[in-house]
């Protein structure tokens, strides 16, 4: 191993720590401090504020749906991509990753163009059938699904490749059908990867801003999620509420990180 001289090593170490400290650790710490400068009262007031509580409930609802949908879709696509051959598989596996590189604003625009009730490709038909997508929760769930789409797949696919199909074939030869094999053999083997993917999706879903902003219409009390609320409150000079809500979001995302850090060694085993 290349042994660096002590000053160089210290220099690199300080650069790394300093950069991360000034860019991430200190700013995040300041927001936490801001939240508590007025004492715990501000946090309590914020939580009892009906607009905040409503926004948090909406965020939880949208994120839950998006995670559930992405979980089912992600596991299905992962198994198909790894265990089956079909024409167009390579293209599909490349397209699956596309959502990670698309700007949230473009995601919002794309959904708007197809599903808005007046001029969208499918929007008027959907509204005729009684389904309002844009400026309502279905659109928000879709936007959230879009941005978090590949996260489960990216966790599950490598594990499926790694474990191979020997165990599944053994189960087949012992008389298990496709569903039984999946439930009793495949699922327990990919369990941790799935949990990991779900936690990542959850963090991403709770935090989505740009795409949701466009498709939700940002109607206070109806389609305003927690992240949209932070923007609105900050710009209305209710900075305390903005900080307190941000603190809650930071808390959740750090909890997600801790869960992931805790799971990672398990998954690696």
């Amino acid at each position, binding site marked *: 191993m290349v042994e660096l001289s002590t000053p160089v090593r210290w220099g690199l170490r300080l650069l790394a720590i300093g950069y991360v400290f000034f860019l991430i650790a200190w700013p995040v710490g300041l927001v936490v401090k801001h939240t508590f400068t007025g004492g715990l009262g501000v946090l309590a007031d914020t939580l009892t504020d009906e607009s905040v509580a409503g926004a948090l409930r909406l965020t939880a609802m949208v994120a839950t749906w998006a995670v559930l949908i992405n979980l089912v879709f992600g596991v299905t696509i992962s198994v198909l991509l790894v265990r089956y051959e079909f024409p167009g598989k390579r293209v599909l596996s490349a397209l699956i990753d596309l959502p990670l590189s698309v700007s949230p604003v473009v995601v919002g625009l794309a959904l708007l163009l197809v599903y808005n009730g007046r001029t969208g490709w499918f929007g008027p038909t959907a509204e005729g059938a009684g389904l309002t997508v844009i400026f309502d929760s279905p659109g928000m769930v879709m936007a959230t699904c879009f941005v978090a789409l590949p996260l489960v797949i990216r966790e599950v696919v490598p594990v499926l490749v790694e474990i191979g199909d*020997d*165990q599944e*074939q*053994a*189960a*087949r*030869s*012992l*008389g*298990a*059908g496709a569903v*039984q094999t999946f*439930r*009793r*053999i495949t699922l*327990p*083997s990919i369990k941790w990867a799935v949990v990991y993917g779900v936690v990542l999706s959850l963090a991403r879903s709770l935090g989505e801003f740009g795409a949701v902003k466009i498709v939700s219409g940002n109607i206070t009390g109806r389609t305003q999620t927690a992240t949209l609320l932070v923007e609105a409150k900050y710009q209305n000079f209710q900075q305390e509420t903005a900080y307190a809500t941000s603190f809650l979001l930071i808390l959740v995302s750090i909890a997600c990180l801790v869960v992931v850090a805790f799971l990672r060694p398990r998954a690696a085993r």
Partner: protein
Amino acid sequence: MSIEVRGITKRFGDFVALDDFNVLLPSGQLTALLGPSGGGKSTLLRIIAGLDRADAGSVSIEGVDATGLPAQKRDVGFVFQHYAVFKHLTVAKNVAFGLEIRAHGGLRPPWAAQRRADRARIDRRVAELLELVHLSQFADRLPSQLSGGQRQRMALARALAVEPKVLLLDEPFGALDAKVRKELREWLRRLHDEVHVTTVFVTHDQEEALEVADEIVVINDGRVEQIGTPDRLYDEPANDFVMGFLGDVTRVNGQLVRPHDIDISRVPLLAGAVEGTVARLLRVGFEVRATVLTDDGEEVLVQLTRTHARAVGLEEGVTVWLTPVTGAATVPALPSMRSAG
């Protein structure tokens, strides 16, 4: 006939793994599919099990046409080279897997009386099987806590649990070290004598096949080279490939012959004996290997015991005469000898 394979053809891209392959494997026997790697024997086994699908041809098991049946409906036990243990289940749960699937498919609710009866029956059967494979004390361990040999015994018990019509083993001892492999091989033979289930195993190790099998099918390049008992194959090889694959061969006087089947003497005793000079002598334990350079320029390998070599008075540089012993298996050496690997 227990397993009947007719006209099976299997291609992977341009590569033909099996070419219009036909074989009949008898009931109740332990049959080895022997051949070099890539010769198609594992593919054949997987097609019999329903794990791979053939491009053409048919498979019937115990008189039932199985060609279109998926693996889970064929009633075969399969043992994989790398064990394919269910890592998240205990040893007992691994063995119980097939029984549970058959009993209720996991669909009957836990409070059903039938399910409790099933449970008791399964537990009894699992205990019996673990006894059979000497793993009773490991019932509650996870596979990761077992050695390779123990895992493979567990895999065997798991396959036997569902009382399959045939038991298929794909290089079952290939991933084990030499000593364990030898033990397990003897154990498999004894086990088969106890349970008598029709068993087919794939191996590329001729010693393993000769020691364990009732009958050997030699497969090369996707075709059958010869079928027969171990003795018959060794003593009457159908061709140079079988002869070469089942043991050492050397070439004397245009014939392929086993090195221990050559008579060597310092005086010309028989007519037609080949004259040559001992170029090298190598002693390995009780055995002496002599390389003889004949007057025709052939290098002949001769194997004999140390006592015999001393009695003949072999030394490097002396002139000797070679003849195949009477009754030795010989095969005419073709001008273009096929690769025997």
